[in-house]
C-alpha cells in the first residue's frame, strides 16, 4: 500500500461521508450519460426514440440497485448507516420527551449520586493520617455494655491491666487530652486557646511518627519524673502562629504560663488523636495518677503485633475485659472493651453516616435501573410491529439491532453526561457540609473515576440490554406471524410477568427508602424542635479559663487536704461579670462552669441527702468528684449511688437565660461565701433525690470534701439537657461564690466559666467590648470557644439535617420512578386489552367490573411490593439505630404513613389508565386493531 494510494483512498472515503449527496448526484449523472449514449446508439441502428429508450432501459436493468451496488463499494455505508441510526434515534427520543426525560433522569441520579458519595467516602478513607502503616494502629476504648454506642476512653487501671495482660499488641501507650492557653507573643500572636495531647513514651512508639523538623520526646522526657517543659507543634500551627519560621526548633512558647521549648514540628496532616489537636507535650510519670481513679479519660493507643488481626485483638481484649469485670466489679463490671482502627476512631461518624447514604444510593440505582428497564421494555413491546414491518421490507437483522442500539446508546450517553454533572454537584454539596467537632474536614475530593465508570457501566448495560427487546421479540416470532396478528395478540407472547416483577421490586425498594427517610426526618425534627429549657436568642457565648497554676497550690505537708485555692478565680469572674453588665447593649449576663449545651465533659458529684432523721448516704467513700462524660452521664456513674451533674453558676443565672423556675427562687447576689450555702436543683434531681416531695427547703451535702457545707435547696428549675441530643439528667447548680477552698485533688472546674451574654441586638457586636474587659484584667488570657448560642445549636443540626433531607430526596425520586412504573404497567395492560374491554362492555359489563379487572393485577403488584418492602424495612432499619434520636427503628407511625402514602401515589398513577379503560367505546375498540 503506497502512500499515494492510501491518500487517495482516504480522500475517497472522506468524500463519501462528507459529500454524500454530491457523490450520489454524480453517480446518477454518470449512469444517465451511459443511458443516453446507449439510446443514441440504438437510434443510430434504426430504432425510434421510444423503442430505443425501452430497449436501453431493459438493458440497463434495475437502476437503483445498480446505484446501490456502486455505493456499496464506497465502503462507508456502515458509517452512513450509523449516522442515520443516530439521527433517527435522536428524533425518536425527541418525540417522546416524557420517556426521554425520565429515562435520562433515572440514569443521571443513579450514576451521579452514587459517584458523589463514593468519591467522598474514598477521600475520607484514604485521607492521610501522616502515620506510617496506620492500618496497624488501633485505639482501645471502653463502653458500657448496655449502651454500646456510648464509647469512652479508658481508666488508668485499664491501661496497666491491658498492657500487662494482652498479647496482641507490640506496643501500647497512654495519652491525655489537654487544652492550654498559648500566651500572647507581642502583636503577631494573640493569646489563644489550643487543644493538645499529653503523650507517654508508649504512645510515641506506637505512632512511630517522625517530626519533619527537630525531634519528638525522649523516653526520659516522657516517662521519668515530672514532665519536661518541651513540646512539639502541628504543621498548621507552625504555619499559622509561627509563620513557618525555619528556626522554630528551640523557640519557646508560654503554655498556661509554663514556658516550654518547642523541640519539633510534626508532619503536615498529623493531628493525632483528633482533628483539633495542635500540640503535644510529654505526659510524665506522675500526671496520670493525679486524676481521679474513675476518670475514663485516657487515650490508649496500640500497634498490632505482626500477624495479629483486628478480630484476634478484639477477642483478646474481650477476654481481658470479662476478667476485669470479675476481679474488680466495682470499677469494671458492666464495661466492654473495643479495639478500633485509628482511622475509624478519628473519622468514625463520617463513615457511618456516609455508608447509610451509600446504601440509599445503591437502592436508588436499583430503582433507576429497574425503571429504565421497564420503560424500555414497554416501549420495545409497542414497537414490535414496526420492527417486523421493517424486517419485511428488507432490513437486515443486524441493521435493526444496530438502530435500536443507537437509540439506547444515545439515551445512555445523555444520561451519563447528566450523571457526571450530578456527581460534581453532589460532591460540592457533601464537601460543604460542616463536620461536627472531631470530624475530618474533607477538602480535596475529586470525582472518583472508577465509581463513575462502574455505575455508568451498570446503568448503560441495563439500557442496552432492554433496548434490544423489540428486536429479540420480533426475531423470535418472525415478521410474518407478527404482521398477521393484531397488535394486541403480539404482546401476549411476552411475559408481562417480568414487567410486573420490575414494578414490584421498584415499589419494595421505594418503601425501604421512604421508611428510612421517614425515620430520619422524624428524628431530625425531634432534635430540632426539642425544648432546650432556656432561650438561646441573641446570646453571645465564650469561655474564660484561669490556669490552674494561678489558683491551685499544694497545701503544707501534714494537712489532710492536698490543695487549696488561693486566690479564688471566682474573684476574677466576678469582676468580669460586673463589667460585662455595664456594657451598653447588654441585656443580661450569665455564667456557668461548663457550657449549657454540647459540653463534652461535665463533672458529677455524689449527693448525700440530709433527711429529717439524719444524713442518708447511698454509697460510701467515693472520690469527691467523679468525672463523667456528658451526654449520658448516668451510665458512667455508679448507678447504685445517687449522683448528679454539677454546675457552678452566677447570680441570677436562670433569670438571665430565661429558664423556667418551677419553685423557689434564683441565686441572688446575697448568696456569698459567708451566707448559708444554697443550691438549685432541676426537676430530674428533685425526682431522684426527693421523690414525691418538694425539695425546696431540704438539705444535702456533697461528700468527700472537708470544707463542704450542707446546702439548702432554694429552687427547682425545669430540666435543661446537657446536649441537644442527650437525655435529661439530674443536675445540681450552686453559686460560684459558695465553694470549698481546700481539696484532696486538683480540680479544674473552678477555673473556668462560660459566659452567656444576652444582647439587645446582634450579639457579635458585644465581642470587642468583652475582649477588652478580659484583656484589661490579664492580657494573656484569651476568650476561647467564641460563638453565639444559636450557632451552637445550629452546628449540631447540619449533618442530621443533610442526611435526613438527602435520604428524603432519594426516597421521593424513587417514589416518582415507582409511580411511573405503576402507570406504565397499567397503561400497557389497558392498551393490550382494549379489544377485550370493548367486548366486555358490549356484553353488558359495568364500568366497575372492568376497572376491577384491570386494576386487579396492579393491586397485586402493589401489595406484593408493599409487603416485601415493609418486611425488608423491618429488618434493615435496625442498622439506622445509631442515627435515630428518640425514634424507634420500628416506629409504627412511620411505617403506617409510608404505606398510606405509597398507596395513594399508586392510585393516583393508576387513575389515568383506569379512566381510559372505563371510557373504552366498545364499537371503536372492536372495529380498529
Amino acid at each position, binding site marked *: 500500500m503506497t502512500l*499515494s494510494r492510501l491518500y487517495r483512498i482516504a480522500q475517497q472515503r472522506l468524500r463519501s461521508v462528507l459529500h454524500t449527496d454530491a457523490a450520489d448526484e454524480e453517480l446518477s*449523472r*454518470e449512469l444517465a450519460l*451511459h443511458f443516453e449514449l*446507449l439510446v443514441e446508439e440504438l437510434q443510430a441502428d434504426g430504432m425510434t426514440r421510444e423503442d430505443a429508450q425501452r430497449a436501453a432501459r431493459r438493458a440497463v*436493468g434495475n437502476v437503483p440497485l445498480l446505484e446501490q451496488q456502486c455505493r456499496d*463499494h464506497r465502503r462507508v455505508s456502515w458509517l452512513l448507516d450509523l449516522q442515520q441510526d443516530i439521527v433517527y434515534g435522536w428524533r425518536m427520543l425527541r418525540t417522546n420527551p416524557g420517556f426521554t426525560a425520565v429515562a435520562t433522569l433515572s440514569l443521571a441520579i443513579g450514576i451521579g449520586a452514587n459517584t458523589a458519595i463514593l468519591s467522598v467516602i474514598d477521600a475520607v478513607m484514604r485521607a492521610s493520617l501522616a502515620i506510617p502503616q496506620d492500618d496497624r494502629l488501633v485505639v482501645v476504648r471502653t463502653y458500657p455494655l448496655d449502651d454500646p454506642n456510648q464509647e469512652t476512653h479508658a481508666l488508668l487501671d485499664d491501661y496497666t491491666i491491658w498492657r500487662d495482660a494482652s498479647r496482641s499488641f507490640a506496643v501500647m501507650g497512654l495519652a491525655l487530652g489537654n487544652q492550654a492557653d498559648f500566651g500572647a507573643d507581642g502583636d503577631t500572636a494573640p493569646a489563644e486557646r489550643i487543644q493538645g495531647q499529653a503523650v507517654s513514651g508508649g504512645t510515641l512508639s506506637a505512632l512511630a511518627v517522625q517530626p519533619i523538623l527537630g525531634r519528638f520526646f525522649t523516653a526520659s522526657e516522657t516517662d521519668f519524673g515530672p514532665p519536661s517543659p518541651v513540646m512539639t507543634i502541628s504543621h498548621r500551627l507552625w504555619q499559622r502562629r509561627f509563620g513557618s519560621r525555619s528556626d522554630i526548633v528551640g523557640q519557646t512558647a508560654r503554655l498556661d504560663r509554663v514556658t516550654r521549648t518547642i523541640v519539633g514540628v510534626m508532619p503536615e496532616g498529623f493531628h493525632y488523636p483528633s482533628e483539633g489537636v495542635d500540640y503535644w507535650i510529654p505526659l510524665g510519670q506522675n500526671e496520670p495518677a493525679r486524676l481521679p481513679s474513675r476518670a475514663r479519660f485516657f487515650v490508649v493507643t496500640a500497634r498490632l503485633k505482626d500477624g495479629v488481626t483486628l478480630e484476634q485483638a478484639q477477642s483478646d481484649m474481650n477476654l481481658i475485659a470479662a476478667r476485669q469485670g470479675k476481679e474488680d466489679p466495682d470499677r469494671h463490671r458492666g464495661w466492654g472493651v473495643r479495639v478500633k482502627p485509628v482511622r475509624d476512631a478519628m473519622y468514625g461518624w463520617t463513615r457511618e453516616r456516609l455508608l447509610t447514604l451509600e446504601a440509599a444510593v445503591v437502592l436508588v440505582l436499583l430503582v433507576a435501573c429497574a425503571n429504565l428497564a421497564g420503560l424500555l421494555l414497554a416501549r420495545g413491546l409497542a414497537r414490535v410491529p414496526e420492527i417486523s414491518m421493517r424486517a419485511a421490507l428488507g432490513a437486515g437483522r443486524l441493521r435493526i439491532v444496530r438502530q435500536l442500539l443507537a437509540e439506547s446508546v444515545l439515551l445512555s450517553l445523555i444520561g451519563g453526561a447528566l450523571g457526571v454533572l450530578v456527581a460534581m454537584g453532589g460532591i460540592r454539596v457533601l464537601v460543604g457540609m460542616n463536620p461536627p467537632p472531631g470530624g475530618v474536614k474533607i477538602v480535596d475530593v475529586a470525582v472518583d473515576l472508577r465509581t463513575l465508570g462502574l455505575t455508568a457501566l451498570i446503568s448503560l448495560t441495563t439500557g442496552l440490554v432492554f433496548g434490544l427487546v423489540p428486536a429479540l421479540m420480533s426475531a423470535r416470532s418472525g415478521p410474518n406471524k407478527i404482521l398477521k396478528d393484531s397488535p394486541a395478540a403480539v404482546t401476549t407472547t411476552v411475559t408481562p410477568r417480568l414487567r410486573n416483577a420490575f414494578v414490584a421490586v421498584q415499589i419494595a425498594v421505594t418503601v425501604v427508602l421512604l421508611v428510612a427517610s421517614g425515620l430520619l426526618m422524624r428524628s431530625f425534627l425531634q432534635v430540632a424542635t426539642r425544648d432546650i429549657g432556656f432561650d438561646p436568642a441573641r446570646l453571645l457565648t465564650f469561655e474564660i479559663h484561669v490556669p490552674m497554676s494561678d489558683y491551685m497550690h499544694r497545701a503544707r505537708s501534714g494537712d489532710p487536704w492536698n490543695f487549696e485555692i488561693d486566690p479564688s478565680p471566682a474573684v476574677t469572674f466576678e469582676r468580669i461579670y460586673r463589667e460585662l453588665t455595664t456594657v451598653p447593649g447588654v441585656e443580661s449576663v450569665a455564667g456557668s462552669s461548663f457550657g449549657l449545651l454540647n459540653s463534652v465533659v461535665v463533672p458529677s458529684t455524689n449527693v448525700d441527702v440530709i433527711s429529717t432523721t439524719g444524713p442518708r448516704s447511698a454509697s460510701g467513700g467515693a472520690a469527691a468528684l467523679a468525672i463523667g462524660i456528658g451526654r449520658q452521664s448516668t451510665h458512667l456513674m455508679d448507678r447504685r449511688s445517687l449522683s448528679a451533674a454539677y454546675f457552678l453558676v452566677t447570680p441570677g443565672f436562670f433569670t438571665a437565660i430565661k429558664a423556667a423556675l418551677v419553685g423557689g427562687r434564683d441565686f441572688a447576689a446575697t448568696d456569698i461565701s459567708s451566707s448559708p450555702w444554697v443550691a438549685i436543683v432541676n426537676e430530674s434531681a428533685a425526682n431522684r433525690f426527693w421523690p414525691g416531695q418538694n425539695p425546696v427547703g431540704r438539705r444535702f451535702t456533697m461528700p468527700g470534701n472537708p470544707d463542704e457545707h450542707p446546702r439548702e435547696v432554694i429552687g427547682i428549675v425545669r430540666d435543661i439537657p446537657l446536649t441537644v441530643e442527650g437525655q435529661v439528667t439530674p443536675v445540681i447548680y450552686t453559686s460560684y461564690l459558695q465553694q470549698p477552698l481546700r481539696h484532696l485533688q486538683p480540680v479544674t472546674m473552678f477555673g473556668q466559666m462560660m459566659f452567656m451574654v444576652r444582647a439587645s441586638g446582634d450579639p457579635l457586636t458585644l465581642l470587642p467590648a468583652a475582649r477588652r474587659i478580659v484583656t484589661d484584667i490579664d492580657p494573656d488570657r484569651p476568650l476561647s470557644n467564641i460563638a453565639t448560642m444559636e450557632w451552637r445549636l445550629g452546628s449540631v443540626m447540619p449533618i442530621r439535617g443533610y442526611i435526613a433531607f438527602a435520604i428524603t430526596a432519594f426516597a421521593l425520586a424513587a417514589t416518582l420512578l415507582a409511580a411511573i412504573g405503576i402507570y406504565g404497567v397499567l397503561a400497557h395492560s389497558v392498551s393490550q386489552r382494549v379489544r377485550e374491554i370493548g367486548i366486555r362492555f358490549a356484553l353488558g359489563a359495568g364500568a366497575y367490573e372492568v376497572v376491577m379487572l384491570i386494576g386487579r393485577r396492579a393491586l397485586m403488584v402493589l401489595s406484593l411490593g408493599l409487603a416485601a418492602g415493609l418486611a425488608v424495612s423491618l429488618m434493615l432499619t435496625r442498622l439506622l439505630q445509631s442515627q435515630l434520636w428518640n425514634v424507634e427503628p420500628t416506629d409504627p407511625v412511620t411505617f403506617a404513613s409510608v404505606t398510606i402514602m405509597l398507596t395513594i401515589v399508586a392510585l393516583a398513577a393508576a387513575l389515568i389508565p383506569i379512566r381510559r379503560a372505563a371510557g373504552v367505546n366498545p364499537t371503536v375498540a372492536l372495529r380498529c386493531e
Partner: protein
Amino acid sequence: MPKPSDLLQGTLDLLILKTLVREPLHGWAISKRIQLLSDDVLAVQQGSLYPALHRLEQQGWVTAEWKGTDQGRNGKFYTLTRDGKRQLERELESWKRLSSAVGLLLERA
C-alpha cells in the same frame, strides 16, 4: 449484439485497467473500447462495469474527473494511476500464469 460471456471480476478489472493505459475514458467509452478490441466477443454490461469502475476508484487504482466529451456533454473520465499501472502488471502476471496453467492442464489431460 453478441451475448456477453461471464467474466470473472478480476478479469474485468484487468480489462478495464488495460483499456485505460492509453488514455482516460468515460464509462461508455470503456465498454465500447472493450467491445471493439475484443472483436465484439466481450460486451460489458452496465451492471458490471460501473460497480467495477467505482471499486477501482475507491481502491485508488484509477482517479476520475469530469470533463467535456467531444460531443459537448459532461462525462466522468477515469485515468489510470501509477499504482493502477503497477496493479495492472500484477494482474497481467497472474492472468498469464493462470492461462498457461489452464493450457497446460488441457494439454496433458
